[in-house]
């Protein structure tokens, strides 16, 4: 029986690694057999320019998080908008880009694009199950240029479990409050030179919200993964062939409807009766073939991939044509009072003289995403200089087909039920993209200076078709080159300074005319690092200069179904800030060490022009107005204490207040625009998570974790409709056994 390799390490070493989230990272892992992880462990000063952060399996296991929001809380420069408390549909931004549905960052799994349709519809309604990941990598600044199409903010790579070199397996079961359960297991081995791995996860919960009239408000997610690989040595060349098959599904009782301020104050976890029928139903499949080969100075990885994703989300769109946001903001007005009471189930839809039905929309969408990508790395000497050349080419194709429809529901005696034959289609269209991308980056060593010069090219052929009108279509071709320069100057063995400048770009959807300006920015970063193996300190400042900031409407951020998929120009904008992290370990005595770390992020985003928009988070903006959902200050503090058989860890995260909307309402002639949530803020919050474990050696490990120890219950967002809470205190007990 083979010991699981992670478990062979001493717990002390593991605890140190956990508390130093960014200390040991270097790009271009060459020891990684499947080439799915981009950054490798490194135990001294990193000489890369640009920000690259690695969260290891040990760190991910520390708190057993299922929620990517919590996983990323210790990474500097990440801005998040909470929504459902479980992180089912994450809203992640880096360096101030809008966090909405993580659409402005490049999301990958094992090095390939994993979003449902990253070019045609980048909103990441599919997000891989975090529990089964063995590493999470974050790239910002010029480091992001190798990972398009979104290059303004950066890229996130989630790494699945590798096929083991020897037989190994594990089970992990856990149960917690609000009906939370997790069952996770994997087994892998090598038979006749063919390695395999099978893995399955089920995570479910009844939900922490209390539905009027009773019922579940949680979710049930399944993930299955199978991997096979075959290794072949031909002379000096080692080949590795891999096949990955994965399947995931989710059913969740999720809604976009929150609460009025008064109802939130009374019970933040209430859910109105009108949300009872809400349901998200998704299914995702992936097939990927991989070939990698390497010699002493060349490595090449080829990936052929196909992702299919379907989702249908039934949720409340409006009541009698009126936005729930409008009703919840003024529930007591005479116009809204009856509709508000219908939402709560306190009035029936049909009363003498009035019939006000609930309009429930099902945004039914099918996606596929497929491609072939080759990434390489070549080291050589030229002009007496050491060059490390990274290059890649990818052909990618993706498509979204929208089949949105609405149905009427009647509220009667507190129960919302479907009105038969009331289905009507609202949006029927297809967006499709075929994209070629290339990048090349040369890292040149000039004494103490490591200079990186690179460029990324994207050539996109896009097609939009209204499936209800053959004459409503658009064909568009866009080409763009995105250069970047970065450098690291080593001052001493333990310290150095870094700088970078690169062009950022975010593709416009296929339905946007080529005459509409695309989103571009020039991004600068400058900072320094110190690492003596015990203390790590890094400070990076950044400045993103947007020539045109763009936004697009989904129901989650706009709430107005008439505006869905519309894009808006915000004009010039600046985002700048500072990311600082410090980590160290404090030896208490010979047996006990206290590793701890601080991470601080300052971000300021503001418009640099005056303009009137109809975007639900902007309205009329003026130069100097802040970008919504961007906290100026974020601080996290992690501390651990561990001995031979046990360990405890505490994570504290502070997020400053952030505006819900940027500008103001406006009126011009017969045109008027009401900016809901004008002047409102998401309050600052402090969340504390605690975890502890005890190791029974051959009998496995018991762990306990408390998410949100202080039971923080402030509003995390007033979107899509009304005030929403984060997850309340949740105590979970689990057991892990590895062999």
């Amino acid at each position, binding site marked *: 029986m083979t010991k699981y390799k992670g478990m062979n390490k001493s717990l002390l070493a593991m605890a140190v690694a956990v508390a130093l989230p960014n200390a040991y990272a270097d790009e271009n892992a060459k020891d990684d057999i499947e080439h799915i992880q981009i950054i490798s462990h490194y135990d001294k000063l990193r000489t890369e320019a640009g920000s690259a952060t690695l969260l290891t399996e040990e760190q991910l296991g520390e708190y057993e998080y299922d929620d990517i929001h919590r996983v990323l809380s210790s990474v500097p420069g990440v801005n998040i908008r909470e929504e459902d408390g479980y992180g089912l549909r994450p809203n992640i931004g880096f360096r101030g880009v809008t966090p909405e549905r993580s659409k402005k960052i490049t999301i990958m799994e094992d090095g390939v694009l994993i979003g449902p349709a990253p070019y045609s519809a980048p909103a990441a309604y599919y997000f891989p199950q975090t529990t089964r990941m063995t590493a999470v990598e974050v790239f910002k600044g010029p480091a992001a240029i190798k990972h398009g199409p979104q290059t303004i903010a950066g890229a996130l790579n989630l790494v699945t479990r590798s096929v083991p070199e020897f037989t190994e397996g594990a089970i992990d079961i856990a149960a917690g409050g609000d009906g939370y359960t997790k069952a996770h297991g994997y087994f892998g081995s090598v038979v006749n030179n063919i390695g395999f791995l099978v893995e399955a996860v089920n995570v479910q919960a009844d939900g922490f919200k209390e539905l009027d009239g009773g019922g579940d408000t949680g979710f049930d997610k399944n993930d299955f993964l199978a991997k096979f690989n075959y290794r072949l040595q031909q002379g000096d060349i080692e080949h590795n062939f891999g096949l990955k098959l994965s399947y995931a599904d989710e059913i969740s009782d999720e809604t976009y409807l929150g609460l009025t301020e008064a109802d939130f104050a009374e019970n933040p976890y209430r859910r109105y009766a009108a949300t009872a029928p809400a349901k998200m139903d998704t299914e995702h499949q992936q097939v990927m073939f991989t070939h990698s080969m390497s010699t002493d100075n060349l490595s090449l990885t080829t990936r052929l991939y196909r992702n299919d994703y379907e989702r249908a989300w039934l949720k409340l769109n409006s009541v009698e044509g009126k936005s729930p946001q409008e009703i919840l903001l003024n529930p007591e007005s005479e116009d809204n009072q009856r509709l508000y009471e219908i939402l709560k189930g306190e009035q029936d839809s049909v009363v003498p003289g009035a019939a006000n039905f609930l309009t429930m929309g099902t945004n039914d969408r099918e996606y596929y995403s497929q491609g072939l990508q080759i990434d390489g790395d070549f080291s050589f000497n030229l002009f007496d200089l050491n060059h490390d050349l990274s290059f890649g080419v990818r052909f990618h194709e993706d498509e979204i087909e929208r089949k949105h429809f609405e149905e009427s529901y009647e509220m009667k005696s507190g129960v919302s039920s479907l009105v038969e034959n009331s289905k009507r289609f609202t949006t029927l269209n297809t967006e499709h993209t075929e994209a070629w991308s290339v990048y090349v980056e040369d890292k040149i060593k000039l004494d103490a200076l490591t200079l990186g010069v690179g460029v990324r090219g994207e050539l996109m052929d896009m097609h939009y078709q*209204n499936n209800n009108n053959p004459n409503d279509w*658009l064909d568009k071709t866009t080409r763009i080159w995105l*250069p970047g320069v970065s450098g690291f100057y080593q001052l001493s063995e333990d310290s150095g300074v870094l700088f970078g400048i690169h*062009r950022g770009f975010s593709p416009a959807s296929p339905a946007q005319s080529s005459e509409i300006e695309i989103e571009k920015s020039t991004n600068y970063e400058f900072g320094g690092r110190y690492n003596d193996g015990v203390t790590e300190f890094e400070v990076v400042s950044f400045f993103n200069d947007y020539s045109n900031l763009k936004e697009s409407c989904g129901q989650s951020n706009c709430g107005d179904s*008439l505006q869905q998929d519309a894009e808006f120009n915000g004009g010039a904008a600046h985002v700048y800030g500072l990311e600082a992290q410090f980590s160290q370990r404090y030896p208490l005595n010979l047996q006990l060490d206290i590793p701890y770390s601080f991470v601080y992020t300052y971000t300021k985003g503001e418009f640099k022009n005056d303009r009137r928009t109809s975007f639900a988070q902007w309205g009329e903006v003026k130069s100097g107005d802040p970008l919504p959902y961007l906290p100026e200050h974020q601080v996290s503090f992690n501390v651990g204490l561990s001995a031979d058989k046990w360990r405890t860890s505490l994570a504290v995260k502070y997020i400053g207040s952030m505006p819900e909307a940027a500008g103001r309402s406006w009126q011009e002639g017969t045109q008027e625009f009401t900016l809901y949530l004008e002047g409102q803020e998401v309050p600052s919050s402090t969340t504390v998570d605690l975890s502890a474990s005890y190791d029974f050696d051959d009998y496995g490990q018991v762990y306990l974790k408390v998410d949100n120890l202080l039971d923080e219950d402030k509003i995390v967002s007033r979107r899509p409709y009304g005030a929403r809470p984060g997850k309340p205190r949740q105590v979970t007990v689990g057991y892990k056994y590895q062999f």
Partner: protein
Amino acid sequence: MRVLTPLSAVAVAVTLLLSGCGESSSSTAGSEFAGGNGTTNPTTPTTPTTPTSFDEAALVANLVNNVLTPTLTQFDQFARAQQTQIAEYCAAEKSQSDTAAELHDKAKDSWRAAMVGWQYVELMQVGPLLENGEALKNNIYSWPAGGALCSIDQDIVYHEDGFINGDSSKPYDIKARTSDRKGLIAIEHALFSTNYDHSCSFANEALAPWNSRTVEERKVARCEFAHTAAGDIVVNSAAILARWQGDNGFANQLINAGSSGSQIDSAHTALNEISKALFYMTKELKDIKLGEPLGLFTNSCGSNICPQDVESDISEHSKENLLANIRAFKQIFTGEGSSTDNTLGFDDFLDAEQGSDVKQRMLTGLAEAEAALLAIDGSLKQAVENETAAVTAVHDKVKNVTDELKNDFINKLALELPQTSAGDND
């Protein structure tokens, strides 16, 4: 130098690329591409591909002077007559005069006349009728949004008490009341409802004693409320006329479109404003007034036949309302208004743009729709229940007109499809 040469070349390339020369985008679009807003129907191009020789300004002038302005002034007269008639009825009802019943009938007739007058206006919603979220229009007639009888019953009591729900700090002021609690809908309930109990499932403090009061007292309370509501209609009608008439009124803005004194940039844009109003026939008339009672859409009865969902169901005046709508449409289409001297209408514009066949199909459709409506005996409410096929026939005939309106009419004349019609239910 060996080092600097290649590095300089790279630096120059990077600088050029950063300065933006590395970017291009081009596209071709379908004839009805409208910005890819994802809705099921597109909007159409708004500018004629070839300039028209038709005198669009003359058409606008005739429609304004001969149809729109007379319609608004006529309604204003009906509104004033209604206020007077209701006042007379109230006086008789309070004094329990023998003439009360007769004056009640006259008051109801005055409401019917005002409603017919207003149904013409419904087809002519431009300018001041659309400003501020259609505030003035809704103050007069908030259908289809307003009309919950409970809300009106509450306001009848608040009006009588002089306060909102017994709160002396909130005096009753009809100007400040929401549109669903006043206007023609509220007067209809106050004058025509024969059930004198309130319609609320839970009576608030002010409404609690209502059902135990005498019918006479309740009739008086309803009548006096109706009188105040009729006065409010007169005020709002005057406000519409004030914005409509005069040198800077919207009528002149339309007529002088394209000249320096007007905010409307061309006669074609002015025509667009007027033609958009015709789309009332698509959604409100066809889908809501006819389609919903027929069960073609979700209604109070689920999706079944639903007689109580007809417009003006208490007064059973929905057939007359529809007739007024169709005739108002025809007036704008043909330009045949209060004066027979000038009949320049959209029909003439269609002739000029090789659209005579479209014109004929629309005129035929209008005539058939009117005939089908007049063929119904009794009220529309009864017909929905007993002569469903006859009501369906009216719906089909109206649809013939709206199909032309949405397609060939706007295409021939290069007019806009209103955003609200882009996602309709055909």
